[in-house]
């Protein structure tokens, strides 16, 4: 079996010479992201605590960083970068679509129940 690896990350911004080198490069990147998350989590800068789209701005940063991490784990450690387009889409889009759907419904419902509690058992009298 031939094993060609695509060795460029960040849209070709960084090109590695070998697959091993790419692995270490991605590790460094993931460690930096985790370190940023931990530092933000401990110090919780006041400027990031404002509400953005129903959640604290800091929480959005955490979620975005998590998705970035997930992307590099899947693409480089699980070799999704080297798979065919159809396999990649089959796996990634199916999961993303179903997860977004589920999360939207459950969080919406949770928020609704919360407002029923706080507003004295009737949120909207139809």
């Amino acid at each position, binding site marked *: 079996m031939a094993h060609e690896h695509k060795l460029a990350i960040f849209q070709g911004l960084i090109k590695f010479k070998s697959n*091993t080198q790419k*692995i270490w490069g991605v590790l460094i990147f993931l*460690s930096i992201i985790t370190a940023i998350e*931990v530092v933000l989590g401990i110090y919780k800068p006041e400027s990031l605590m404002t509400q953005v789209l129903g959640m604290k701005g800091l929480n959005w940063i955490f979620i975005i960083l998590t998705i970035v991490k997930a992307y590099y*784990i899947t693409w480089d450690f699980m070799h999704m970068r080297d798979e065919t387009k159809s396999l990649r889409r089959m*796996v990634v889009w199916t999961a993303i679509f179903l997860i977004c759907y*589920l999360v939207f419904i*459950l969080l919406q419902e949770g928020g609704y129940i*919360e407002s029923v509690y706080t507003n004295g058992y009737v949120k909207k009298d139809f």
Partner: protein
Amino acid sequence: MNTTVENTGTEGKTWGGGNEPLKASYGKMMMWFFIVSDALTFSGFLAAYGFSRFKFIDSWPIADEVFTHVPFFHGNYPMIYVAFMTFILIMSSVTMVLAVDAGHHMKKKAVTWYMFLTVIGGLIFVGSQAWEWGTFIKGDFGAVQTKGGNILQFGEYVDVDGEQKFKRVAVADFAKASPTERVQHERKNGLWFVSEGTLPEFTVDEIYAGLESHSNVYVRNQIINEKGEKTVLTREEGLKQIKENGKLYVKGANLHVNEYGSPLFADFFFFITGFHGFHVFSGVVINIIIFFNVILGTYEKRRSYEMVEKVGLYWHFVDLVWVFVFTFFYLV
């Protein structure tokens, strides 16, 4: 004996099953499909956690106040240990992917070493998680559960750099347990099919008496105020709450009670990290099997280390899930 069929004799025959439009072997593709379904299971759990959290958004426990311990160190270090665990898991993911890479180059020795390191990383992680569970179950300050199932915690104001900061106080530090006749009922000295859990160390009356005599101790409830902190009650209000609503002294957490706040938090913590820990554990077992197969030269004979790659996919997936558990349980 090699029972895995690598060549089916249908290669190149489009209608005989030899056509591979996805350029991936059967085993690898099935591993991907399994991963998708497992990812949906985990996202179901995490979304359910989000549901409950949104439902009780104004009184959910603050993770930074719950997970503050580091083994062998005393003091308050939120996040540090769990960050270490995350790093261990990412590291073992790296050794795994290095093993896969060495497998592509048919380097048996390197694959063996990297698999070994991966197993070690996995064991450290599972051990850390067990410790984390132990600490969480044991608890640290203790609290009073009210009739409505809410949690009242205790603390005092201390001066930190000229600023008044609320610091938690353990119930054992101000309340005094009085001798009692009541002993825990065990199966061996009564009806064999009836047993009961550990009796609480203090009664609510004892805690009330202790609170009354220590004027520096305040009661706080779980409601989060606009500053993002739990609400601290006045002395009178706190005493009144304990007297009128206090029902049970709780220390630590289990599936019924949770000294850190909503019992749902503990339930989800045990369920989600437990399910993930179980995945890590089974991943370690599978990795050990593959490790021995590598040593025995199974894949050398097969002229392909693809099995390492498939197991690697599973291992990376476990890492991937942890990244999300870390965010939603400890950070957000």
